[in-house]
């Protein structure tokens, strides 16, 4: 009671501050009380003590009651009563419930269990039945419910019972493919979910879950492509995996499915160069219900297989020897080496121990301009004439040449390259400070670029990340921190809390410029004790960099979709790559289906890659669709391409059809309920008691609402009048 009093007083205080009328009333009553007391004292002096005290007490009680009345004093009254328990049934009517793996279909089994429980419990409880698939709704007639061919959203089902104080019986196979279940569970406060898992192993399905492939490959060279195949109820089955190019078979493999996840490797040699579309396909087995997930399309950039390069080096150096040795192993690259003996002469040249013509200065420019790639290793800027620098700029900007700059003490000096012809090509700003330091730096791959072809030491992304974690340390670095904004940092060199770019890429329209900020790759390789492994990785890194820089694709606009086919209400993610020398101002996108045009298309430009756009839209209905994209430059359409895709009837429900016992158990455990298999659900009859729920309700009663208080006041006032009359007081 004291708590209520405290509360009511607090509330009163609030009323004072918020209700002007109440405040005025209190003031008036207080004034009236003071006035009565004053008049009484002034005019009735000399009255006997007993009537004086009696009158004073009566008037004080009246004033106190009036004050309580005005201050809205209240208390609680408790009521107890009993009511029937509510039990809510959630019945899964999604498409996967049509699977007949429990003697009958899962849905029929669920209905049988429901009827059995209803018969057992009779009418001793309040009943509510909700059916759910992609949506949830209350069932009024049990005869009307049936599987509706849609996907499953347990989230929608649980949100229907979120606000109820009820015991819920969930009859489902636990296959959930829409919405998030666990966040819904946190919102269930007074609801216990008892799950009955209905289903067994489900259907047989063989699915091509992923294709691992190189983004870039070289003509006439082995290309390794891996297919990741998931199987359900098909263990031990022999299947055929085929790889096709333009519908023609280029490779195939027969395997026996031994595990849940199986990997098949296929090799082929690319015959023609360009951006080539391939299709990986698992030939469907006779009794396989879902064939839509048996194939995937993907693109590989196949480049020509011979490249010319020029390597300029300031002087003989272990880095030069290391790189030259590695490059000589790559048959695709034909390099000419210019090693400065002084500003005007070069060392004699041997490639694979065969003497070459000693390079002469006047041949330098013509050799560069007929090459695909120019490597400059730590050459002091003043070794070049203005004409040569201008030609190097022209080679990169106008002749689609690529540039690889290697660090060292001389190459990135600000007094030379700054403000000269190639200054604006560089991916960094020169500051004028000494930037070459010999120290130990840890090499770290930039996470956002773990799939970038330039630093892909393995076609498998996770393996690539692992390789880079163990690639070792670098022992010298050009610490450049003024990187230009559009430059893509691929690898970092870390020292304590500080990190500096180690390998960066700048795309300058079609041209590519890569900088490696060290002349110590040879030491990284050399100081790694595991020679056989490191040799492979460092060699691969150099190969990848040279290949990435050398490849020049035809000018094209390509459209890639994130999946090969979609289902209704799916989100379609698309990627547009425009390989062009010209700057693209914008793109125009049009998507049409059998139902008409899709208006709501979102897209953005990926700033890390020139001329790449990505976007998304939703497809509401099944049918054939077409996406058309135009690339606009200076108000003209430069490129146009079209891609067709299908939105198929939903097969999501049949992709993983095994009873998801774990999810159902989780739902029950987290809500203090219990899980039952469909064949031992009888226990639920004991676990759920139909004892009536005791309901305790508290009713708030305000003094103002009680007429007795008014009567008491009136009676006290009358008593006061009687007392005064009794003693003959005015």
């Amino acid at each position, binding site marked *: 009671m004291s708590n209520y009093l405290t509360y009511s007083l607090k509330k009163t205080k609030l009323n004072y501050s918020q209700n002007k009328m109440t405040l005025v009333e209190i003031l008036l009553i207080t004034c009236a009380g003071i006035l009565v007391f004053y008049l009484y004292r002034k005019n009735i002096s000399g009255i006997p003590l007993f009537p004086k005290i009696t009158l004073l007490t009566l008037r004080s009680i009246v004033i106190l009651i009036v004050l309580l009345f005005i201050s809205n004093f209240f208390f609680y009254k408790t009521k107890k009563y009993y009511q029937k328990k509510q039990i809510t049934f959630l019945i899964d009517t999604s498409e996967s419930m049509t699977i007949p793996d429990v003697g009958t279909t899962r849905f029929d089994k669920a209905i049988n269990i429901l009827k059995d429980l209803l018969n057992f419990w009779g009418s001793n409880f309040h009943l509510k039945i909700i059916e759910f698939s992609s949506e949830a709704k209350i069932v009024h007639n049990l005869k009307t419910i049936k599987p509706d061919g849609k996907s499953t959203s347990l989230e929608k089902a649980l949100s229907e019972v979120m606000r109820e104080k009820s015991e819920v019986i969930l009859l489902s196979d636990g296959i959930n493919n829409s919405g998030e279940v666990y966040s819904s569970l946190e919102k269930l406060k007074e609801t216990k979910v008892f799950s009955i898992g209905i289903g067994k192993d489900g259907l047989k399905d063989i699915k091509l879950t992923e294709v691992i492939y190189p983004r870039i490959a070289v003509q006439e060279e082995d290309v390794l492509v891996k297919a990741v195949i998931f199987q359900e109820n098909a263990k031990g089955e022999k299947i055929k995996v085929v790889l096709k190019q333009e519908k023609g078979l280029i490779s195939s493999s027969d395997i026996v499915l031994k595990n849940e996840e199986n990997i098949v490797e296929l090799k082929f040699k690319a015959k023609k160069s360009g951006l080539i579309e391939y299709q990986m396909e698992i030939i469907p087995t006779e009794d396989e219900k879902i064939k839509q997930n048996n194939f995937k399309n993907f693109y590989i950039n196949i480049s020509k297989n011979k490249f010319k390069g020029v390597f300029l080096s300031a002087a*003989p150096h272990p880095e030069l*020897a*290391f790189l030259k040795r590695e490059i000589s192993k790559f048959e695709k690259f034909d390099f000419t080496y210019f090693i400065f003996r002084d500003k005007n002469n070069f060392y004699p040249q041997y490639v694979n121990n065969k003497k070459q013509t000693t390079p002469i200065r006047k041949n330098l420019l013509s050799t560069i301009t007929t090459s695909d790639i120019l490597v400059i290793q730590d050459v002091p800027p003043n070794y070049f004439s203005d004409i040569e620098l201008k030609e190097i700029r022209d080679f990169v900007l106008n002749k689609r040449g690529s540039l690889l700059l290697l660090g060292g003490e001389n190459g990135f000096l600000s007094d030379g390259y700054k403000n000269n012809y190639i200054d604006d090509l560089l991916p960094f700003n020169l500051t004028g400070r000494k930037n070459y330091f*010999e120290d130990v730096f840890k090499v770290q791959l930039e996470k956002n670029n773990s799939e970038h072809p330039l630093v892909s030491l393995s076609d498998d992304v996770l393996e690539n990340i692992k390789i880079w974690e163990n690639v070792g340390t670098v022992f010298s670095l050009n610490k450049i921190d003024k990187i230009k904004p559009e430059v893509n940092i691929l690898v970092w060199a870390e020292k304590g809390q500080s990190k500096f770019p180690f390998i960066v890429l700048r795309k300058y329209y079609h041209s590519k410029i890569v900088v490696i900020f060290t002349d110590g790759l040879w030491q990284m*390789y050399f100081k790694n004790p595991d*020679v056989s492994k490191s040799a492979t990785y460092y060699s691969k890194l150099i190969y990848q960099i040279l290949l990435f820089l050398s490849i020049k694709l035809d000018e094209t606009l390509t459209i890639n979709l994130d999946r090969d086919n979609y289902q209704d209400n799916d989100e379609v993610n698309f990627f547009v790559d425009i390989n062009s020398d010209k700057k693209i101002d914008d793109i125009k996108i049009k998507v049409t289906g059998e139902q008409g045009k899709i208006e709501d298309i979102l897209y953005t430009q990926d700033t890390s890659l020139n001329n790449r756009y990505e976007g998304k839209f939703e497809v509401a209905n099944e049918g054939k669709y077409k996406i058309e994209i135009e690339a606009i430059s200076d108000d003209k359409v430069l490129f146009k391409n079209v891609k067709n895709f299908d939105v198929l009837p939903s097969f999501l429900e049949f992709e993983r059809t095994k009873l998801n016992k774990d999810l159902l158990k989780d739902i029950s455990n987290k809500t203090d309920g219990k899980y039952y298999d469909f064949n031992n659900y009888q226990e639920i009859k004991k676990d759920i008691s139909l004892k009536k729920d005791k309901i305790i309700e508290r009713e708030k009663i305000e003094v103002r609402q009680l007429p007795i208080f008014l009567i008491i006041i009136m009676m006290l006032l009358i008593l006061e009048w009687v007392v005064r009359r009794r003693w003959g007081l005015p």
Partner: protein
Amino acid sequence: MKLRGIRFILIGMIILLFSSYLFSEGERYFTIGRVKYSGGGDWYNDPQGIPNLLKDLKKRTNIKAQTQQKIVTLTDNKIYDTPFLFITGHGNINFTPDEVKNLRNYLLAGGFLYADDDYGMDEAIRREMKKVFPDKELTEVPFSHPIYNSFYDFSKTGPPKIHEHYEGPPKGFGIFDDWGRLMVYYTYNSNISDGWVDTYNDSPEVRENAFKMGINIIVYVLSN
């Protein structure tokens, strides 16, 4: 007096700073590791030879080099600080199993070993190199090989004769890796490294040839 003292300290500090800067600059430049081995074959022979060669290398080429050699044992990871090792002496050499393994790794990873017989080392170096590469032979390096023409032209004469220890012409032998790279170069009956010191009263022409061939070997290693 006080002022002179402060000035003296300041100048001293500047010299100290400057010299440490120079020292640190030189540390990362090219040098040669002299192999300290067991077996009693005088690994330390002619200690001034390498510093003299490196001084001449700096004078004649644009290669950034230190003028001090590094003394290394083959089990020491310091061998990986330089791509160039040098071994000489007269008499026996004995590599331990760890040294054999480490030297093999070093050479396969891109390192280079120059062995110069200063009389009586031939049998030992051939035996020990067989331990390092049991599957490879020391074969004579043809005069057309870049090591004879990387900077100076020895393509007609082969390795120069500095001191004659045996009958016959001077010879250069090599062990090559699977890609055709010369990993080990061994000069027999030539003794080029004796020409890098002035203790044997050799003629200026003979010493000049010794320096030229020494520089050729270094340029070859750093550019091929």
